[in-house]
């Protein structure tokens, strides 16, 4: 077959694929499965070998600093134990009060599964990565992913033994958040350009009382479709009034160190969806 015809046929095929996958995900299932079984074992092997090597080199260089750190941590442990007992007392009291007002344990512990990152985006434009667990381990799309107490992103594609996580710093990602102290809603958007300085943007913050300040915690909001409430996103870095004089926008520093992510936790609880009839 002359190459011109082949080019034409494949162009047509690609266009049709793009149109179909834009709305549905008919093809994702089989392709994800087949390629998952070919590619993922290699990636797991390489990431394990790489992890082992970097661990060895780090071990050697860090022994001295670890000794100092150990001493400091022991002191901290003593202080924290004391604090913990105090907090425990508070918790009993809180539980008692909760029972009194019959609150559900809405913000109780979520079920989590640990997963290892085995590869990152093949290009330089987005911040997505692949983890080594998939639908066989009970994961599915839209599950939230956290690490180090902060929100990393959510699962956007699932194969049997892998899943793709789109992070919140990804240029095309938006998260509905709120300030923890005042419960004002806002939109957090990833930004490739600003991520070089370690910040991402937020916008549409209605703060009529001027109560939100720099350094405030931002968590996922109650009204988000995909994200569970009250997961820490980051801290406000700078805050500016928009030219419309009604809303505010600015930068926030993510709580997660996206440069050095190795393991993440996937929350297997999904946000409750309202089924439209």
């Amino acid at each position, binding site marked *: *077959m002359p*190459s011109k015809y*082949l*080019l034409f046929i*494949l*162009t047509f*095929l*690609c*266009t*049709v*694929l*793009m149109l*179909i*996958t*834009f709305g549905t995900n008919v*093809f*994702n299932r089989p*392709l*994800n499965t087949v*390629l998952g079984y*070919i*590619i993922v074992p*290699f*990636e797991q092997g*390489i*990431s394990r070998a*790489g992890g082992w090597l*970097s661990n060895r080199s780090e071990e050697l260089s860090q022994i001295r600093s670890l000794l100092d750190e150990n001493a400091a941590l022991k002191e901290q442990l003593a202080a924290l134990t004391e604090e913990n007992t105090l907090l425990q007392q508070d918790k009993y009291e809180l539980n008692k009060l909760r029972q009194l007002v019959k609150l559900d344990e809405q913000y109780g512990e979520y079920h989590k599964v640990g997963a290892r990152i*085995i*590869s*990152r*985006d*093949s*290009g*330089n*434009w*987005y911040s*997505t990565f*692949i983890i080594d667990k998939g639908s066989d381990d009970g994961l599915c799309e839209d599950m939230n992913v956290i690490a180090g107490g902060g929100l990393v992103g959510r699962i*956007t594609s699932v194969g049997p033994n892998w899943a*793709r996580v789109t992070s919140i710093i990804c*240029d*095309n990602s938006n998260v509905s958040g709120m300030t923890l102290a005042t419960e004002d809603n806002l939109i957090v958007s990833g930004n*490739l*350009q600003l991520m*070089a300085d370690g910040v991402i943007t937020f916008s549409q913050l209605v703060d009529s009382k001027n109560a939100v300040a720099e350094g405030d915690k931002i968590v996922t909001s109650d009204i988000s479709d995909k994200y569970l409430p009250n997961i820490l996103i980051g801290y406000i870095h700078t805050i500016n009034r928009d030219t419309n004089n009604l809303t505010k926008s600015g930068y926030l520093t993510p709580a997660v160190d996206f*440069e050095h992510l190795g393991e993440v936790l996937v929350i297997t609880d999904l946000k409750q969806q309202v089924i439209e009839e």
Partner: protein
Amino acid sequence: MLRKFIVTIFILVCFVLQCSVFGALSFAGIVPNLMIILTSAFGFMRGEKEGLIIGFFCGLLSDVFYGDILGFYALILMYIGFLNGKFSRIFYPEDIKLPIALITVSDLSYGIICYIMQFLLRGRLDFPYYLGRIILPETIYTIIVTLFLYPLILKTNERLEAREKRRAQKFV
């Protein structure tokens, strides 16, 4: 048959390397684009048809794992492979200038197309920033990797071609 097998291995290994090993070896968060090197190299070494087929599969692999829609990268890489194939008539294995130039131009145009389709259309207008921060560093890193990877591809291709020639002569 052997050619198909070896090319498949090349694509898979390069993809896995690009996603894992080069992620760890990245300078300032930039990884080289091995898929472009493969597509482009097989394009100008073997002609339009092989270039476009290899480009298609390289792109499809990226699409499945990292793309939001299937077929986007496949389409771009397929055309890059096809256009590189146009240069197979003036390609000589001894000459290193043409391959380097072609791979550079291919990676630059790939970066610019990605920027236009995925960023410019969403209102990210600061082209100089993306050119300086993503597109140019990626191209430079890709060229450096090309200096090591390209001779390997070239040698493999020459071996395969010699083998195919021998087998063809047997049947005459």
